[in-house]
């Protein structure tokens, strides 16, 4: 790349700081700016970041010609240094970050652009753009962080910005509560994440730099060779991912996050924040791959989330709620992928999902804006005529998310399902990594059995036994892959169904709302329209970069990510025969088609009585789905109410009575009481004092003699 007279490394801080600058300008002085100035500052800073990101990406491509493992690093300064611990303020743009960079800034810019038409009459526009820019800033910190501490800045930063954005219309208490819920639930996940960071710090010598961690965990002699410890750390990291990427049991914040302005949903649910967990696991692939047990947990949580959220999506009537549960479900797919060891497929789905989900949310925003803030799809219908552009882009995105070829979602979802069954951890290599740990355990066991320390044969036998047991336990995990595959396939069926149910109910048939609204309904204005068009186009072609047979066996997307994911790939191997691969592909298409077909049967051919009949027949099931399995109510009863009750009891009993009254004020009162007693003696009568003195002297004399 001769276009660069300087290293692209220097661009990294600029990419991050531009949105921050925009956020600060709009946040501090936005009230004095005109609306256009606010738009301009907010959007151009992100656009500039996007253009610079493209330069970084191209620069990386160029650099990879000479060095396939090339990456750009920028170390600004030592951020925190204390004792043995040291964290740099540093950025890293490798192949994974470069992909994320483009998605975050690209989709982020389109969201900024379309916001200008969605929020055109809101007086708080400067504040809104400030938050939006800060959000992009946090997300960029997250994907460009060179170590876990830097990543954590962005990780908590997006949580804080989502708190502000979801509660943007703070005059409405429900929205403020939704914002708070997002923050608190994310914080619960963050605990797991930070504890994992602390454990890694303690074990891996005081640095959580990705480069050094990768080196550490490629060599068991340098890091941890104790399998349960690694599993624990992975699971803790995954708790964090559950919070950010909205997995069971921490997904509850995401549907409520719909309280924010719709473009915010497009940003949070497509390009930023929710992808953070998947990104982090892919980034830490060298660690996760060492623990097939933790990976299996990850995969199964993803599979359960995928089907659980999809089933809720089947019956929701709020256009944004359907999309929200669809996001949770799609994130489930990504988590299945990273849990199955298909790290590249997970990132691939993240990449394609960003386009079609952003397109869907912006389209929903256009519908809601066009219908004067109507969100109930039962009061929509026939919008095709009023909003041709929105209709077309929405339809394309629906096909993409349903997983029909040759649109983007097909390639990525198919890759996930296929690799879930194809891959398997390399138990021999893992056993080799853990050899030291097995040896220690064998020594301990042989010692405990009363054998002599010098009896090496016994120890060796014990070690063999432990190793065999470990390999067997890894191999037994294989069955779960089939379960995850089956669940994923069901979820894919549901996805195709509920997305087309949404499409048909919104855009086709007869309009079911009031006529005043219909008369004023309008298509998306140009900024939003162009964003929709670009995103729809990307939903079509976005998947082609990862086409499995595009150039023989050469898959550009996978090949691109290879340097970052190499270690993960080394430990999780497997390939499908082409015939099986084609078969699975056909199965995917078939399942998606069935889903679309059922949706068309029920909702696409005018008013049908069938859905209502089904709902009545399976009333309990329907109610459970409609009420989201009563999970919020469950959490309220099991977590929030007891927390309040315990706090109140502790306050009234322990703090007020046991500590303050009994321990502090009690002795004081007792002292006052005693002095009252003492006062009784001070009568002022000389005779009484005299009697006292005589008695006293007599007693003393008696005692002394």
């Amino acid at each position, binding site marked *: 790349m001769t276009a660069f007279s300087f290293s692209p490394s220097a661009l990294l801080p600029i990419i991050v700081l531009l949105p921050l600058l925009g956020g600060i300008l709009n946040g501090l002085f936005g009230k004095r700016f005109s609306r256009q100035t606010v738009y301009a500052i907010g959007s151009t800073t992100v656009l500039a970041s996007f253009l610079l990101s493209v330069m970084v990406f191209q620069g990386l491509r160029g650099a990879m010609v000479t060095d396939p493992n090339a990456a750009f690093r920028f170390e600004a*300064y*030592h*951020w*925190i*240094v*204390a*004792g*043995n*611990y040291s964290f740099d*303020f540093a950025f890293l743009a490798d192949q994974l970050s470069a992909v994320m960079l483009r998605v975050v800034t690209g989709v982020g810019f389109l969201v900024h652009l379309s916001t200008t038409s969605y929020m055109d009459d809101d007086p708080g526009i400067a504040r809104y753009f400030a938050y939006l820019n800060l959000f992009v800033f946090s997300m960029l910190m997250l994907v460009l962080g060179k170590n876990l*501490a830097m990543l*954590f*800045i962005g*990780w*908590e*930063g997006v949580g*804080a910005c989502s*708190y*502000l954005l979801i*509660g943007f219309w*703070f*005059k*409405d*208490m429900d929205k*403020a*509560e939704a914002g*708070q819920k997002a*923050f*608190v639930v994310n*914080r*619960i996940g*963050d*605990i797991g994440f*930070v*504890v994992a*960071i*602390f*454990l890694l*710090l*303690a*074990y891996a010598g005081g640095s959580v730099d990705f480069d050094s961690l990768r080196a550490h965990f490629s060599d068991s002699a340098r890091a941890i060779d104790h399998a349960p410890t690694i599993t624990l750390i992975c699971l803790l990291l995954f708790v964090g991912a559950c919070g950010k990427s909205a997995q069971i049991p921490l997904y509850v914040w995401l549907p409520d996050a719909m309280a924010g302005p719709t473009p915010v949903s497009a940003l949070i649910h497509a390009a930023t924040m929710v992808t953070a967990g998947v990104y982090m696991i892919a980034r830490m692939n060298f660690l996760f791959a060492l623990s097939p047990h933790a990976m299996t947990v990850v995969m199964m949580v993803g599979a359960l989330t995928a089907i659980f959220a999809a089933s809720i999506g089947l019956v929701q009537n709020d256009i944004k709620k359907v999309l929200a549960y669809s996001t949770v479900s799609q994130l489930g797919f990504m988590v299945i992928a990273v849990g199955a060891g298909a790290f590249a497929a997970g990132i691939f789905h993240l990449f394609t999902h960003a386009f079609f989900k952003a397109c869907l949310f912006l389209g929903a925003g256009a519908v809601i804006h066009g219908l004067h803030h109507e969100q109930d799809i039962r009061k929509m219908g026939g919008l095709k005529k009023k909003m041709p552009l929105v209709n077309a882009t929405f339809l394309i995105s629906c096909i993409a998310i349903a997983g029909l070829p040759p649109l983007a979602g097909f390639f990525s979802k198919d890759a996930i399902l296929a690799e879930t069954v194809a891959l398997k951890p390399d138990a021999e290599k893992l056993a080799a990594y853990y050899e030291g740990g097995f040896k220690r355990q064998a020594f301990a066991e042989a010692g405990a059995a009363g054998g002599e320390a010098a009896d090496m044969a016994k120890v060796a036998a014990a070690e063999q036994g432990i190793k065999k047991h470990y390999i067997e336990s890894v191999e037994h995990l294989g069955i779960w892959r089939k379960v995850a595959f089956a669940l994923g396939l069901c979820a894919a069926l549901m996805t195709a169904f509920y997305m087309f149910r949404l499409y048909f109910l919104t855009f086709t048939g007869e309009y079911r709302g009031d006529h005043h609204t219909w008369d004023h309904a309008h298509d998306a204005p140009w900024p939003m329209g162009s964003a929709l068009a670009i995103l729809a186009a990307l939903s079509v072609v976005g998947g082609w970069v990862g086409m499995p047979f595009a150039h023989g066996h050469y898959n550009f997307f996978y090949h691109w990510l290879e340097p970052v994911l190499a270690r993960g790939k080394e430990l999780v191997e497997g390939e499908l025969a082409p015939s099986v691969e084609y078969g699975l592909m056909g199965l995917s298409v078939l399942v998606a088609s069935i889903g679309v077909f059922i949706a068309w049967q029920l909702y696409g051919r005018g008013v049908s009585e069938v859905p209502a009949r089904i709902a009545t027949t399976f009333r309990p099931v329907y109610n459970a789905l409609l009420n989201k399995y009563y999970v919020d109510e469950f959490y309220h009863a099991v977590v929030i109410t007891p*927390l*309040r009750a*315990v*706090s*109140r009891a*502790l*306050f009234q009993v*322990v*703090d007020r009575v046991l*500590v*303050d009254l009994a*321990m*502090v*004020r009690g002795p*004081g009162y007792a002292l006052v009481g005693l002095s009252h007693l003492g006062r009784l003696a001070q009568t002022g009568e000389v005779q009484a004092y005299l009697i006292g003195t005589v008695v006293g002297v007599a007693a003393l004399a008696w005692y002394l003699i």
Partner: protein
Amino acid sequence: METTFAQTWLQFQSHGGFPLLTLLCALPTLFALVALMVPGEHGAVHKAISLGGSLLTLLVGVLVYQQFNLSSQTMQLADDFAWIPGIGARWTLAIDGLSLPLVLLTVCLTPIVFIGAWSAIDKRWKEFAIAMLILETGMLGSLLAVDMLVFYVFWEIMLIPMYLIIGIWGGRDRIYATVKFFLYTMFGSLLMLVAILYLYGKAGGSFSLLRLTQLHLSTPEQSWLFAAFALAFLIKVPVFPFHTWLPDAHTEAPTPGSVVLAGVMLKLGTYGLLRFAIPLFPAAMGKFSPLLLILAVIGIVFGALMAYMQTDVKRLVAYSSVSHLGFVMLGIVIFNEEALQGALLQGLNHGISTGALFLLVGFVYERRHTREISEFGGIAKRMPVYAAFFVFITMSSIALPLTNGFVGEFLIFGGSFKEGVHAAFVPPGGGMPWRTLVLGGTAVATLGIVLGAVYMLSMVRRVFFGPITKPENEGLADLTFRERALMSAFAVFVIWIGVMPGPFLKMSEATVHAMVAPSRPAILQVRAPIDYQRELKQAEAQAAR
């Protein structure tokens, strides 16, 4: 049997030059005398005198920072004179990385407090100025003293002005609160006085801290003396269950009193532990470590739950202090370099964020004369700038990365997990192993991270968001220029420490290193002998290299 370790970091060399630290310490009192002599009718004159005096003190403080050698591992800038020769008492003031951050916090916070008091204190400005200036001398003296008697004198001097500030300018129940505060603190410090006199006798008539650390004390002696010292400091911090004076004192104190109380005075408790109790009685510290760890963790969680239950904003912030100081205590009990650095920084951070919160609560109290959460609601609409500052400081208080709170908490937890992960599995002679205790305790303490967000954000939501429900809140005026300027000063430090904590960590780095070197082995010998052997071997290996 027990090896003793020389506390060389407490050594000092009298520089013989201009007594800068004495000047720093005396300056506020000099201005208090000036204020005393100026007739009392003119509030403006006394405002000028007090602000001028505190700003001059700040200037001297900056001078001290300039003279301070960041890489020195001993006490610096010592003033050492004979004071009361008859009893062998010397006037010894010196400074190191332990006291420097708190000294700077004190001299910075005092002028801020005077500006904040501009309208918050509406009667007897003259007396207020005198009390506050004498209080500053008391705090600076306590921080600079390296002679037990000098320390004790200043420690007690602090009490009286604070007693008056709460008792005269406080709220409705001020007398109850201030008497409780006074008696409670007095009770703790009297026991400490007894312990000091015992040591004085043992040392053959010296109050010098360095001299006292060289005494050979039996284990029961150490335990009793440590208990007496620690009680005084734990009450001051305050550590659960000695905390109940704090919510009362904070709630009834006028805004400036609360700011100083939270900002500096609480930290004198943790400072006292580090400066006196631990180096004097390290073995006892080892023995009491499990108990103190448990109390710290209880404080973190319990304080947070109590804060969640409060209906008065100020009382909520007061209980949040119990939780935050629990983190600081955790770092101190762990006693490795990482956790200690975190604890020291977190002390500073708490001064900044809680000081700012008390000022913010004061602003709205001046407007509405109430602090009940239920009296507010939706006021972000009327006071957007105020709301922005409040949310910002809240983020600092709940330790969002890139704010100051994060750096401190991160290091405390990082250090604690390091201690736990590397501690031995096997308990020495039965009982719960230190490893289990540290890992379990720290894991429980992480709950504080979530609970902090819960109680702070719930309060923010109920005060600022939603519709305006009370007509009284419709006419609320946003912050004035003076108030914005004050808050901006806090905001600068929140971001500065969060983004570039280097200079702040650097202040105490050398001292912490030098302090851990003798005290940690002495503590470990008692609380985790296996770890002591391991670290000894590591140190030897390092020395050999």
